[in-house]
């Protein structure tokens, strides 16, 4: 059931329009930030308008303009896209509050640029979520890379420039060098770039070509952080905390994995995946290696943000491994893991920023005993880490449940083992932080005497997202309905 | 023609390059004229003695006028090019006191 409607387009464009307004209100910070909230609320309201229809099984489509014969700048809203868009827009609000709390007291000179780039980034993330074909997705993907570059280099010192350089080189090299040719080959082979249930390839397409294309896409969308194209992610952690949290826990990296989910289900097709063992094998191996390696590296990191970054790389591979399983519950788990991990990780990143602001501590070894000084922050941190590890009653449990189910459905017991090992590793690198913060004696008693909770504008968003970790557990059934609609379109077509 | 082309490309002296250019162009002009030429033919102008009229020309007895017209244009173009080329060479000479390509290059990079 497809229905043409311009709402998806407006949802995408509204925060870009906000960006223009924001850049005009350089001298009136209050109006500037009011615009952001207004845009976020309008966006959210428009998203909510689409919810009943999508749950009814409708697909909202809209074509703005034809770019190439047969391929337009078009949007299509389905369950997974809506869920992803919903998560990014919802989390935009607490992060904005947090950024106000963080940047305003510092009299940061480039706040206006920060907020406008942020809005454009949200626009393009939602654009990726709503893309109806590969070309549209690629366009928004590139806009996202470019618009987040000023955010990564926000501090404009040498370290930031270095991180930013790495960021752009990794992302542009892979997308231009791998994803673009892969896309053109798909277009040349099939004459279409639309995401369709069952894929676009004809039956006689050779397995070798499919496998090569799959690998090109996996690495081409380097935002998904698959090894060895993951190094931009730790490098980009020089960005201010709100950027790391929203972009590198939610928008940017999730856009990467979301693109891969879309391509695997919409271009290759689930049936094709399931019937081509070489294809799933290569996806699973790449993801599995990244999963374990990243978790091990995370364990050895002392810098809190770097540990979080490597943990993100590992968690992204969960999602890709879920797709690689090519079973219904595997894909459901992958799609669900996007929001679940997003809330968890965003809480962790916000907390890392808050810890740094409150105590000046960047390294985990400096964090002994700080829990007593900043209890609220550390409690939020604890909830966030529970969610990422996947323990009830937090959302991460649900998505991991589906993922584990998926391994059994597709008879890949080794993947089951990998998931379990990795979860144990997650626990091993997250839980000690909270434990030491509360119970270990501070190494240097006098150092943190004056430390106290950061401003309320920063604490409240953290608590909000931490509560979110719990809420997604209890509302997981609603979320599954979105995913089910998505599965109905893509996975159950035949 | 080949002489002209060779001296255009291989000679280091700017004036020799210009001369080569002129030779090359003259070669092409002759080539075109030779296309239009015929045995025993006269210039393509109506005269009393040539035994033909405007409406019924004796085609065997005149050379092809088209190539000649084309070459008139080509000569004009060639002269203009040569003029510009020599003027530029003179300017270069004023600057560097030399026509030699290598010397000029040395001067410039100094």
């Amino acid at each position, binding site marked *: 059931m497809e229905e043409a409607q311009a709402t998806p387009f407006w949802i995408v464009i509204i925060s870009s329009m906000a960006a223009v307004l924001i850049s005009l209100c350089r001298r009136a910070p209050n109006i500037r930030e009011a615009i952001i909230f207004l845009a976020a609320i309008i966006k959210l309201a428009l998203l909510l308008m689409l919810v009943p229809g999508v749950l009814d099984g409708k697909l909202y489509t809209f074509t703005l*303009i*034809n*770019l*190439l*014969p047969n391929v*337009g*700048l078009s949007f299509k809203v389905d369950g997974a896209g809506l869920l992803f868009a919903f998560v990014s827009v919802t989390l935009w609000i607490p992060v904005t509050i947090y950024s106000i709390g963080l940047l305003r007291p510092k009299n940061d*000179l480039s706040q206006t640029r920060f907020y406008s780039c942020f809005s454009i980034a949200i626009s393009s993330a939602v654009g990726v979520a709503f893309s109806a074909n590969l070309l549209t997705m690629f*366009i928004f993907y*590139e806009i996202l890379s*470019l618009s987040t*570059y*000023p955010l990564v*280099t926000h501090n*404009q010192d040498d370290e*930031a*420039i270095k991180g*930013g*350089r790495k960021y*752009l*080189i990794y992302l*542009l*090299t892979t997308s*231009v*060098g791998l994803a*673009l*040719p892969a896309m*053109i*080959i798909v*277009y*040349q082979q099939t004459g279409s770039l639309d995401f369709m249930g069952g894929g676009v390839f004809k039956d006689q397409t050779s397995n070798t070509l499919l496998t090569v294309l799959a690998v090109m896409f996996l690495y081409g969308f380097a935002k998904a952080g698959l090894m060895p194209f993951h190094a931009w992610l730790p490098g980009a952690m020089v960005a201010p905390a709100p950027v790391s949290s929203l972009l590198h826990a939610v928008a940017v990296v999730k856009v990467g994995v979301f693109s891969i989910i879309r391509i695997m289900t919409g271009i290759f097709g689930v049936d094709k995946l399931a019937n081509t063992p070489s294809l799933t094998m290569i996806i699973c191996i790449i993801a599995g290696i990244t999963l374990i390696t990243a978790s091990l590296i995370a364990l050895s990191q002392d810098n809190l943000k770097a540990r979080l970054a490597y943990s993100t790389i590992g968690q992204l591979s969960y999602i890709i491994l879920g797709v690689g399983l090519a079973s219904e519950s595997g894909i459901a788990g992958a799609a669900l893991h996007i929001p679940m991990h997003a809330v968890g990780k965003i809480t962790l990143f916000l907390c890392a920023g808050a810890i740094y602001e409150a105590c000046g501590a960047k390294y985990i070894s400096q964090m002994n005993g700080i829990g007593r000084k900043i209890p609220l922050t550390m409690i939020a941190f604890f909830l966030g880490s529970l969610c990422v590890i996947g323990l009830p009653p937090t959302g991460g449990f649900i998505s991991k449940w589906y993922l584990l189910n998926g391994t059994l459905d597709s008879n890949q017991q080794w993947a089951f083992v990998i998931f379990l090992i990795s979860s144990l590793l997650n626990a091993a690198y997250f839980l000690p932080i909270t434990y030491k913060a509360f119970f270990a004696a501070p190494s240097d008693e006098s150092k943190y005497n004056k430390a106290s909770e950061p401003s309320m504008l920063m604490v409240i968003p953290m608590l909000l997202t931490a509560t979110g970790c719990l809420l997604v557990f209890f509302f997981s059934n609603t979320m599954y309905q979105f995913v089910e609609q998505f599965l109905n379109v893509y996975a159950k077509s035949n | *023609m080949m002489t002209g*082309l060779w001296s*255009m*490309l291989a000679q280091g002296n*700017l004036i020799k*390059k210009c001369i080569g*250019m002129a030779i*090359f*162009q003259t070669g*092409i002009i002759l*080539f*075109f004229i030779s*296309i239009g030429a015929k045995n025993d033919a006269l210039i393509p102008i109506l005269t009393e003695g040539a035994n033909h009229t405007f409406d019924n020309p004796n085609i065997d007895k005149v050379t092809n006028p088209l*190539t000649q017209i*084309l070459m008139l*244009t*080509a000569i004009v*173009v060639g002269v*203009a*090019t040569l003029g*510009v*080329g020599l003027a*530029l*060479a003179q*300017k*270069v000479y004023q*600057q560097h006191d030399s026509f030699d390509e290598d010397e*000029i290059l040395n001067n*410039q990079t100094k």
Partner: protein
Amino acid sequence: MIKHLPIFIVLAPLLGAVLAALTSWYRPKLSFPIVLSGLFISCLSSFCLIFNILNSESGVIHYQLGGWGDKGEYGIVGIQITVDYLNGLILTAVTIISLLTAIFSSQSVNRELAGQQRYFFALFSLLVTGLLGITITGDIFNLYVFMEIAALSSYALIAYGKGRSYMASFNYLIMGTMGACLYLLGVGFVFVKTGTLNIENLSLLIPQTLQTSQTVFVGFVLIIVGAWAKMAFFPMHGWLPNAYTYAPTASGALLAPLATKVSVYAMIRIMITVYSIDYVLKSPNIQTAALLLSSIAILVGSFFSLTQTNLRKIACYFIVSEIGYMVGGAWLANDPGLKGAVYHIIADAAMTSALFMVIGCILFRTGQVELKKLDGLFYKMPITFIALVITMAALIGVPPTCGFFSKFYLIQGAAQAGTWHFVGALLISSLIKAVILFRIIEIGYNKVPNPAKEGNKTIPRDEAPISMLIPTLIVTLSLIALGIFTDTLITDFIAKALPEIPAP
């Protein structure tokens, strides 16, 4: 009136040039408005023409100079002007860009060439005449004449730059004349066999009856090599970087986008109309060589641009590599490749024009375009800097700019033909351009000038004058507009301009 539209396009700038030179004796200030109005009339008539073509059934408009015409069994006699979708599109692009460049250059010419404006603008107009003539003519000898008109005026325009520009211009003259002579020689060979110079006549004769003729083949090779020399195709590209770097700002801004592209058009016209695609496909040796050379041209241009420190030189080497795109696309000789090549002529004319205009703006304000000295450019000239970034993004091929779509078609064509080295060259050149963009951003944007770091909120703005800024912005925004309307451009114009090529 409508009937005579095609000739107006060429005549208006020609008259403009002559009048500007004549009136300048007693009213030097008149020359600029005269040239401008000539270009404007030309621009207007090209617009009318393209609408006429869209409305006409055949999609071709003929115009006979001096009342000659179709003489039955002799074919078409006299010089004919032929406008179809292909050159209609390019005519429009040339007239628009030259008009904008004229507006753009008035300020910089006043500064750089004080006292010589009138001659400069007369030559400027003459150059446009030559370029339009190459595009519009339906006669291969006439094409040569216009080629030389354009070339002669461009030698002079470049030599206005003083200093090293004399030598650069001389080298250009030698290379350009060689190219033109080879072209003329080729025309001679073709004439021997066919007895006609009219493109339409030739297109009836050669593909059908003279497929195997050695003479015609030699003519083909000579014409193509001549055109390559004119467009600075590898390995005959040596003259271009110096010539365009040391030329005055305004000459560079006019020559860089148009001169080479028009030669590419001439090559494509010879390939697809005079000789037909079949003919091209049946000479596989040249095809392989041309594709290989294009790949090398792209790589050489890109790598040399990486080693340069002067933004203008970098831009010049970009042209060398972009020429490789177009020649390669044309020689792929399949549907997407040719579409990509023709689309890229338009797109690259706009991109190069934008790039040179931006460089002109920076030169006008700061007096140099050394990459290292551009620090903090964003804070001094924010609009110019944003235009520079958009242009670079288009050159890299970031969607939704036009550079992306031309690359899309070219890669698709190369994939269809199985020419993987061309795909690789395209991608590598994109990446190299990306590296240069990073460098520009890092220097111009992230190296904040001192007042900003000390908490001083007012960083002195020093934006280019409005008469330079507006043309720059129009061209820059057109890069995005072209990208968005790719589909219209391809299906409504370019697809109709090209002969049907069956997919293999």
